[in-house]
């Protein structure tokens, strides 16, 4: 028996009252990957080589080989990515229950603060003030931090490196466990190269978003774009990573469904 909800969804969608927003950055070699100190292993950036393009290598077809790390471009972080999540059940991209690939989203707009202060940290107080305006964060919802970082076009502006490392916004060390404990969030998503702030190695614990989210079997999304097209509440996110055996994360196409107008 067909479900009237799905039929209604398609009706609304075809009528243009529901809209899809692509939250994905284009995979291109020049898109920056996270930079660790050079003595550590590094994530491969996106690289692409043409196999053939209607030429002597393949007369009627065009295709490419590409390579990249699990954490290149717009990507999903599974709990196993961080040491705090290494022993949890269903913590790899291939074992995460598929239901978890659809969730509502709350979009917290800190773009003005981030423009003024690239080291802006999201706090509990800030989230509470946001809730007063936009309503309480529902259970199992993504919290997406809109910083407009995706509008920084050059790798230099995007990574924003100084002699003391990268400078980009993120959550502070208190708000992350609070979001998990008090709001039971699904995960945390950002526009910058990681879910944590550029200077998050100086927080306690270092990289609190990775540490707490993954330690509590929650997920991460980063290098998102078009968050400015989402409402504060009400968007639905479809984010399904590639099914890599024991994978710690994966590049993916992140789509949001929103009501139009």
């Amino acid at each position, binding site marked *: 028996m067909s479900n009237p909800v799905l039929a209604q969804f398609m009706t609304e969608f075809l009528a243009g009252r529901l809209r899809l927003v692509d939250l994905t950055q284009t995979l291109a*070699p*020049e898109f920056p990957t996270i930079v660790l100190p050079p003595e550590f292993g590094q994530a491969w950036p996106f690289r692409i080589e043409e196999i053939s393009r209607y030429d002597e290598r393949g007369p009627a077809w065009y295709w490419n080989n590409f390579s990249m790390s699990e954490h290149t471009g717009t990507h999903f972080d599974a709990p196993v990515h961080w040491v705090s999540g290494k022993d949890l059940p269903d913590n790899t991209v291939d074992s995460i229950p598929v239901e978890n690939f659809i969730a509502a989203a709350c979009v917290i707009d800190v773009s003005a603060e981030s423009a003024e202060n690239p080291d802006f940290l999201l706090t509990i107080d800030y989230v509470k003030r946001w809730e007063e305006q936009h309503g309480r964060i529902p259970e199992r919802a993504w919290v997406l931090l809109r910083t407009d970082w995706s509008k920084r076009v050059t790798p230099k502006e995007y990574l924003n490196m100084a002699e003391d490392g990268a400078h980009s916004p993120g959550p502070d060390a208190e708000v992350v466990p609070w979001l998990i404990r008090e709001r039971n969030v699904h995960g945390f998503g950002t526009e910058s190269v990681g879910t944590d702030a550029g200077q998050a190695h100086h927080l306690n614990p270092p990289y609190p978003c990775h540490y707490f989210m993954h330690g509590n079997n929650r997920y991460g999304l980063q290098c998102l774009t078009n968050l400015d097209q989402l409402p504060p509440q009400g968007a639905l996110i479809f984010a399904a990573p590639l099914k890599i055996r024991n994978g710690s994360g994966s590049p993916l196409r992140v789509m949001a469904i929103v009501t139009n107008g």
Partner: protein
Amino acid sequence: MTDPLVKPKKKNPVERTRLPTRPPAPRSRAAQGLTRAAAEGVFEMQTCGDCGALQYPPREVCHQCLSERLVWKDADPRGTLIATTVLRHSNDLYFRERLPWKVGTVKMAAGPSVVAHVHEDCAEGGAVRLALKLDRSGQAVLHALPEKDTPNMNDAPQLRESTCDPKFRRVLVSDGKSAMGLAVARAMLDAGANAVFLGDPTSWKTVKAFDALVASDPRVQPVELDVTDTDSVDRLAASIGGKVEILVNTAAYLRDGGILGRKDVILARDAFEVNVLGMMRLAQAFGPGMGFRAADGSNNAVAWVNILSIHALAALPARGAWSASMAAALSAAQTLRAEFAGAGVRVMNVFPGPIDEEWEQLTPPPKLAPAAVAKAIVQGLQGGLEDVYVGDIAEELRTRLRENHKAVERELGQ
């Protein structure tokens, strides 16, 4: 006195580009002893191990005593120019485009009389010094040079045919942000390069010395270039490929670590990605354009420079993955040399010992300053060399490899 080279004018875009031609190439196997000497910039002659006679041209047996014990030895390059001729006609495609061409006979102090290309500053009856140089076919030829350096002597067109002088040429330095890349760029500017395209593989990273060099000289043009990214290499070649006359590949990836002690081949892949595949990407993108311009005026495309390591010849197991990439890079460079031979673009391989840079921090001295390697590169180009060994460690290893490569293998493995 040689007229100083004038800065080449901008290319006339509606004139046909002169295509490369080559001087006659075939040589006997015995004559390849001269090639080896010329490639390394030394002056050696075939010498009889029995009677001590020097002979030229090289043969299979001694012309004096018919002994087969012929060895290559350092020889006295001095001589007297006893006769000269200026060629004004030639049926050879290469020479007829480069006439007049001065040749002569030199009576060597060491015995033989030889026919040589004669520098315009040499007078008949006067003292000269001979040099073995590679011509555009990559074969050794004798040049009679003034006994002492004369002003602008390297600018003489006939000599410039055998060299790859950076003067008034445009140079691409593939990674301009490394200590080596910066040193090479500075050395090229000092040598009179018309332009240095300074590759920037990490536009997100501020390197003060890079910015300072760009600001210091209008001849320096920063260009984005990451040799691991085919798109990036192709984009740059599409933009400046027709202007690169010397390419110095300074992109390098050096890390410690052997093979058994690791759990993955990522380090090895990263090393091959930069050191081997990076060179191939550059060659595929820039090589054809350079070959096409190999006879294009006084600032023709002349040289492709690979900065390798002496460990391309003998692995350093403590850096086993990197050593393997160096050996592979040398092999790829040999193929490039064969492929560039038709156009006459010289492939010059540089084999330094340890260099004083961040990834060699724990290597005990002596270490080469990047500026010393850069200087050797400029001198190698000015001399028209193919193989440049830089520093005592590289020289010593090379000598010992010839004597007993197994001994070197055992010692480097300790």
